[in-house]
């Protein structure tokens, strides 16, 4: 279920903010569309990312999906468990974070959707 504390991008990533840091993953809608996830290409720790830039990828059996960063900043951690257990994203997409980013411009968060807005957005995508 989409949670009120999270923000959502049009590319179906979720962002959970803790202070000046944000965890980023893909949404339930995204994992459902992708199907069985078999590989997560993780970004490099300490690399800097720009909002709307492709930073890594999630691959299902059928297809590869770019992960487009919803915020700008520096990657300070990656979820290395996903390297060997990519299916964690299918099982619980809101726990299986992909990367943690230290925000360089927290005002960007204002451009993301809240849970209700994102739910409406997904309805129109289907």
């Amino acid at each position, binding site marked *: 279920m989409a949670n009120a504390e999270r923000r959502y991008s049009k590319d179906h990533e979720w962002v959970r903010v803790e202070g000046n840091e944000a965890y980023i993953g893909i949404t339930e809608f995204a994992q459902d569309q992708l199907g069985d996830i078999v590989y997560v*290409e993780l970004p490099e720790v300490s690399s800097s990312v720009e909002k709307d830039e492709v930073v890594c*990828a999630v691959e299902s*059996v*059928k*297809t*590869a999906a770019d992960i487009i960063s919803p915020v700008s900043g520096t990657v300070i951690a990656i979820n290395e468990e996903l390297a060997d257990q990519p299916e964690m994203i299918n099982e619980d997409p809101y726990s299986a974070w992909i990367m943690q980013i230290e925000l360089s411009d927290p005002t960007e968060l204002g451009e993301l959707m809240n849970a209700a807005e994102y739910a409406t957005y997904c309805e129109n995508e289907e």
Partner: protein
Amino acid sequence: MKKTPVYSTHVELRARMIDFGGWMMPVQYSGILEEHNKVRESAGLFDVSHMGEILLQGQDALGFADYLVTNDLCEMKYGDVVYSPMCYENGGCVDDILVYCMGDEKIMLVVNASNIEKDFDWIDSNTNGFNVTVNNVSDSFSQLAVQGPKAQQVLQRLTSTELDEIGFFKFRENVLIDNTSALVSRTGYTGEDGFEIYIEATAGEKLFRLILDEGGSDILPCGLGARDTLRMESCLPLYGHELTPDITPVQAGLGYFIKLTDKPFIGKAAIKREMQEKPRKRVAGFEMMDRGIARNGYKVYDRDKKEIGFVTSGSFCPTLSKNMGLALIDAGHAGSGNTIFIEVRKNLIEANTVKKPFYKKKYKK
């Protein structure tokens, strides 16, 4: 968008539907991995009604079919099925098809869905000198595939015809299933034992449900996603990928299905020349040595970073738990045991060429 006669059942089963060559087709129901494994271990049911059927009728039906394809059909008898590429004069591929011998003057060609009209036009334009009529009867049939080690056991519950008597690449007509007459062949596209069933279009949906009901826990409905991973592990070519107007069957490694006997066929001169001179490019199998999945169209390089070709199909292979694929590359690199590099999102990932097929199971032949 075209729909098969089974469409509403796919929707009811909550399949994810995609546009496949102009057809609304199920890509998956419960999930590609689960469906793939079910076919390898038990049985899967596929709606492949999008495939086309073209009937050749007349005194020269068999001779005409023989002229269209690279394989040799002259030994074909009633009840035989033969697989063959069908080529242009330059050796490029029009399609790869199944030929069903339904009598001295009646041949059915089963063609790929996205090629139905192109194939019909090609076939119809080459009848000069043959006493034959060509009819596209694709809309008259539903086609279902029951595949997997338990395929026969499941299907046998629905018919009194002894399915064990249908050999590999043989068919029977007038097989009564639920009081409807069907043509059943022991053929498929998964690398497993199994059957393809041709039945009047309107009976397809009911039969699909009946096979699922009778199969119970032995069978799952399977979509095009699993069909693709299953055929790729078995290295069966997919038209538009390993075979195209630019990729000859020689390059695709289908020499077994090319017979340079006395018979003339369209493309023979070009194919003969290419076989004698050895093809410059070949479709090689490969296994990724480092993390990453190769996808259709990705570029392939040698150790010196010289571009040597491109990936035609690539995926995670569920049965083998490896990332593998097929690539059309310079022939010098195509033998097994070579190191190649595949460009995955700007990174060059190491891969080894390996023997085809990746997966092979022994079953009734």
